[in-house]
């Protein structure tokens, strides 16, 4: 009896080298000795018996029959996936190690905003490699997310302190997009202050990839972007909404911007400073010389470079701009017991509420990486960070002195960790070549000029070795006059103030207890674990979030992410050092092209929102290339996710909503009317498939045809790809471009709100309009991310997933995802109305249950159900979207029947609890739902005045005796927090009032 999906037909023999003496019945033999650690049966939750049982309850005799009844015949594919046979986990990991060995990890001295860093092992093992952290969802259910919300509040406090600006978000995608966000924020603020300004100045000594990303965004937003020397900005004759400055500059200079910013302010121009956080531990922070907004990367705070990502970018600003700040913001509020509690603040700024009025489309960010960076600051504390920065700076100074002695010409500005030098008597290329032979990558500025950037991992021996690249004396071995012990002591003894020629930072930072308490590994470990224990993740129970696809993130998929051969590569390392990555990218592009049916794939967009943006830019570029720049109308069904309309606006489109009918389908007549009305200007339609209401729309092919007939292109939102893989393809349905949320369908973990990846796949006519390389933006469409392949290191996760599953396993996963949803809909249907169904009464891979009917008779709102689910140890499904007052449930294929049953039982029990209120057997305001979630503190309190027993509150289901998840706080008061905005760590006194003090740290 096998446990999972095995091929129902004999698998075809693989091409195997002829072996001497191979048996005549080779295919049978081959099948008999295949690896036993097959993966699909591990990834897919229900076993064969459970699948049969579930199918039976729905009245089908096979998965194929269920799919036939669910997916419209017109769009079913005739070409199965050509991805190949499934692989064993062990075997594939061995192969991946070989691929990894094709990468050559040289020491990077390239800089450009990416520095090698030491990830403290306690953080690597207990956060980055820990499913308790990486399988969490975005902290919308704040009561069961207090751990990561605290870590993110630490992140905000860290950024706010280091930049000396009071309000910081958590977080953005990379420095380039953060700068682009800041530009749009400047324009929005200028509009508010009476007169929108449409030009933005960028100092030419910003990182080149940042400039390229800002230019792409400026172009789509209709902002004129002027690039030039910082001090040449003419504020009097030009109406700039803002200016972007790099600090220190991309070639390492620490520049005093005080006067420049004062001039900008006098003209009503805002100042954005892209600053290096490690440098800010030593040099004057942007908030102290007038910056209005600071942006940057937190990568070098313990997050590996990963050939470009993922890592978190930051943004901080003045309090008065709170409502213009993009991205998620954690704030402090209080719970029903009056205790401090964290939750996401002023979410009304965000795209999911503001839609086309949002100034940013950012959604999934980089939570896991922001948490790592914040923990790095917690572990090192202010003194530790300062020591790291001083050490890097001293080594840089040592290097600079010796380079000068060797006759190379350095610029005489103060520097922190990066030098630009004009080399004497030899070409830059020769130096680069020699450095490579010594194991280092340097930066090339031009034929005579190179850049060197040091980091936390640099050693004195390495500085010595590096110097070898700069001597013409080839016989010199590096022990001579390079760095003697005396030279080093001379530098080591210098106080930091002298090192930085008047730029030294005087103000304190990271003074909060949290940054000064956990400096021993024991304390750190316990702090990380304590926070983790407050958060519900996939390690506890299913997280049935509609549209979010919280499936298994398998350990084998995660293993390679932290392998040095992948994690330590600089995004701009020479191509011949990244051959392993190139193979991964090429496989992944081919597979994703097969899965979508499209011609080409760009792996650059590092979130779904960025994929939407890149896809729409491709459409715009296509229209422009045909002389149809006027095609700037984007039709979007009202049922679309809020990110769609905000991405359309950011990409320069005007949004025209299209109506949906009572079944949640696009109203064909309204679409035809709108397409005809805007025929001259119709650029695109954005559509999600299956629909956001969880239904395979029958008329989707017709919808695409209408748009094409009127000259538009069809953008498909790939959020629901988990219901398509192997059964149909966006291209076969009629779309021209789609993005893929690799963090949904393809197993990149949600990380508590990121990282994600949103590559796009396009039809042949759009191929020339894929995003350009950030350092070679010569194509018609500029780059959308700072790194050429976005968050490259996490592309390994979908690579492993797809390779392990094979075409057959992937298709099976889709079938079971549809089965699981239909099984749950069948069980819950008698208790909660299922709002939308397809032609045969079937739902897709998710479904919407109505909860609006309870309020009139019992006062119970959907939020009360969500909070009561916490008492059962479950994360609520997606709430009030796409329809207010409902829940959208997506089980995914990874959940077993017993887990689905447990969730359904919980929901049905809650329905009965509501019935007790409806029938007057329970109080209308003082009941288990309104008071949920119940904390341990409330339940063991000497005072218990509720009309129901404690047992019912805490253990409403028998299995809770064995697996109870205790929420850290009671119901959180959201309005109170938004009315009293606090977004940095509150004083410790507020905690100590309600808990005993912790032992003093080191």
């Amino acid at each position, binding site marked *: 009896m096998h446990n999972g999906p095995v091929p129902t037909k004999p698998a075809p023999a693989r091409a195997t080298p002829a072996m001497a003496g191979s048996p005549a019945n080779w295919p049978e033999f081959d099948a008999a000795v295949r690896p036993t650690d097959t993966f699909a049966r591990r990834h897919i939750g229900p076993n064969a018996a459970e699948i049969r049982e579930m199918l039976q309850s729905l009245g089908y005799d096979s998965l194929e029959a269920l799919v036939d009844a669910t997916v419209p015949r017109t769009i079913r594919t005739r070409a199965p996936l050509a991805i190949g046979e499934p692989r064993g986990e062990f075997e594939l990991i061995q192969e991946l190690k070989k691929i990894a060995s094709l990468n050559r990890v040289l020491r990077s001295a390239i800089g450009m905003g990416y520095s090698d860093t030491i990830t403290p092992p306690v953080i690597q093992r207990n956060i980055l490699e820990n499913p308790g952290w990486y399988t969490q969802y975005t902290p919308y259910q704040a009561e069961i997310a207090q751990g990561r919300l605290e870590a993110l509040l630490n992140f905000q406090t860290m950024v706010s302190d280091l930049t000396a600006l009071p309000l910081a978000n958590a977080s953005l995608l990379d420095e380039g997009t953060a700068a682009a966000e800041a530009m749009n924020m400047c324009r929005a603020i200028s509009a508010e202050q009476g007169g929108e300004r449409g030009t933005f100045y960028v100092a030419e000594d910003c990182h080149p990839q940042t400039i390229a990303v800002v230019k792409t965004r400026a172009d789509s937003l209709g902002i004129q972007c002027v690039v030039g020397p910082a001090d040449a900005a003419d504020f009097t004759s030009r109406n700039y909404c803002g200016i972007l400055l790099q600090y220190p500059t991309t070639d390492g200079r620490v520049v005093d911007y005080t006067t420049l910013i004062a001039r900008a302010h006098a003209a009503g121009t805002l100042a954005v400073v892209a600053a290096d956080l490690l440098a800010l531990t030593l040099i004057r922070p942007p908030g102290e010389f007038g910056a209005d907004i600071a942006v940057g990367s937190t990568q070098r705070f313990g997050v590996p470079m990963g050939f470009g990502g993922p890592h978190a970018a930051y943004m901080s600003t003045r309090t008065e701009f709170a*409502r213009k700040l993009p991205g998620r913001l954690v704030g402090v509020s209080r719970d029903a017991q009056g205790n401090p509690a964290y939750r996401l603040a002023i979410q*009304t700024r965000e795209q999911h509420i503001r839609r086309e009025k949002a100034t940013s489309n950012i959604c999934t960010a980089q939570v896991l990486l922001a948490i790592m960076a914040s923990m790095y600051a917690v572990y090192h504390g202010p003194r530790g960070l300062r020591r790291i920065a001083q050490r890097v700076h001293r080594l840089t100074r040592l290097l600079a002195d010796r380079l000068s002695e060797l006759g190379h010409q350095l610029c005489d500005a103060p520097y922190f960790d990066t030098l630009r030098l004009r080399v004497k008597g030899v070409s830059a290329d020769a130096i680069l070549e020699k450095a490579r032979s010594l194991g280092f990558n340097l930066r090339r500025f031009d034929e005579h000029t190179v850049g060197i950037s040091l980091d936390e991992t640099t050693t004195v021996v390495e500085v010595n070795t590096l110097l070898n690249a700069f001597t013409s004396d080839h016989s010199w071995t590096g022990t001579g006059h390079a760095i003697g012990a005396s030279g080093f002591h001379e530098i080591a003894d210098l106080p930091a103030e002298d090192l930085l020629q008047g730029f030294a930072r005087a103000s304190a930072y990271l003074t909060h207890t949290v940054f000064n308490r956990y400096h021993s590994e024991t304390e750190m470990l316990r702090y990380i674990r304590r926070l983790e224990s407050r958060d519900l993740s996939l390690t506890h129970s299913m997280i049935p979030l509609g549209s979010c696809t919280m499936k298994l993130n398998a350990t084998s998929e995660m293993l390679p992410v932290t392998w040095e051969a992948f994690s330590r590569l600089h995004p701009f390392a020479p191509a011949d050092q990244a051959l392993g990555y190139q193979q991964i990218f090429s496989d992944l592009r081919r597979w994703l092209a097969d899965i979508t049916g499209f011609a080409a794939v760009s792996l650059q967009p590092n979130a779904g929102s960025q994929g939407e943006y890149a896809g729409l830019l491709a459409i715009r570029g296509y229209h422009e290339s045909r002389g149809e720049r006027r095609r700037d109308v984007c039709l979007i069904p009202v049922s679309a996710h809020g990110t769609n309309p905000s991405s359309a606006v950011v990409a320069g489109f005007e949004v025209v909503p299209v109506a949906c009918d009572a079944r949640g389908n696009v109203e064909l007549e309204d679409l035809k009317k709108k397409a005809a009305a805007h025929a001259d200007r119709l650029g695109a339609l954005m559509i999600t498939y299956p629909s956001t209401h969880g239904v395979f729309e029958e008329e989707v092919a017709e919808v695409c045809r209408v748009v094409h007939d009127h000259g538009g292109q069809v953008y498909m939102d790939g959020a629901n790809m988990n219901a398509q893989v192997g059964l149909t393809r966006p291209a076969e349905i009629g779309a021209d471009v789609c993005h893929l949320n690799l963090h949904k369908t393809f197993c990149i973990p949600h990380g508590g709100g990121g990282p994600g990846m949103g590559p796009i796949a396009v039809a042949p006519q759009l191929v020339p309009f894929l995003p350009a390389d950030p350092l070679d933006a010569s194509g018609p469409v500029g780059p959308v991310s700072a790194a050429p392949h976005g968050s490259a290191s996490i592309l390994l996760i979908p690579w492993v997933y797809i390779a392990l599953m094979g075409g057959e396993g992937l298709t099976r996963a889709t079938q079971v995802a549809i089965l699981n949803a239909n099984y749950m809909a069948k069980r819950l249907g008698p208790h909660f109305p299922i709002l939308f169904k397809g032609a045969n009464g079937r739902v897709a891979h998710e479904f919407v249950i109505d909860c609006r009917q309870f309020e009139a008779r019992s006062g119970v709102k959907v939020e009360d159900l969500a909070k009561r689910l916490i008492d059962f140890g479950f994360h609520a499904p997606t709430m009030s979207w796409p329809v207010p007052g409902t829940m959208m449930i997506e089980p995914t294929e990874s959940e077993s029947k017993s887990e689905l049953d447990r969730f359904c039982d919980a929901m049905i029990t809650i329905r009965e609890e509501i019935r007790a209120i409806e029938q007057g057997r329970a109080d209308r305001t003082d009941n288990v739902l309104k008071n949920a979630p119940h904390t341990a503190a409330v339940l063991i309190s000497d005072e218990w005045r509720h009309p129901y027993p404690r047992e019912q509150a805490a253990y409403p289901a028998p299995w809770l005796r064995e697996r109870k998840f205790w929420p850290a706080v009671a119901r959180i008061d959201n309005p109170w927090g938004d009315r009293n905005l606090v977004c940095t760590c509150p004083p410790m006194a507020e905690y100590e009032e309600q808990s005993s003090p912790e032992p003093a740290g080191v």
Partner: protein
Amino acid sequence: METPANYRYLPSHEWHFAEGDTVTIGITHFAAEELTDVTFVGLPKVGTKVQADQRFGEIESVKATSDLYSGISGSVIEVNSELATNPGLVNSDPYKKGWMIKVKVSTPAELQRLLSVEDYLKKAGH
């Protein structure tokens, strides 16, 4: 809560109360209920010109954000600064303490175009 009979309304739920050439503007109880707990009211500075049927500010709750519209043209002569620290007044007392701006009207006839309480209630669907 009653909807005052001597106020004039926009279909977008703003009320207008005229005393001489000064018109006070706020949002109706119905609108405040729909928004749920108001957390922020963004209002123009004194001296700002407002236009009939144009946006003059925005209002936020935990759940939603909406633009605020004026039914009349004129210039803002007073702003309810109380709302900056206590936006919940819009929920607790929408017609009195929850007022938003006072406008010196430039075209008094515009007031006659606005909805009567009966017409507003009909349009608002309650």
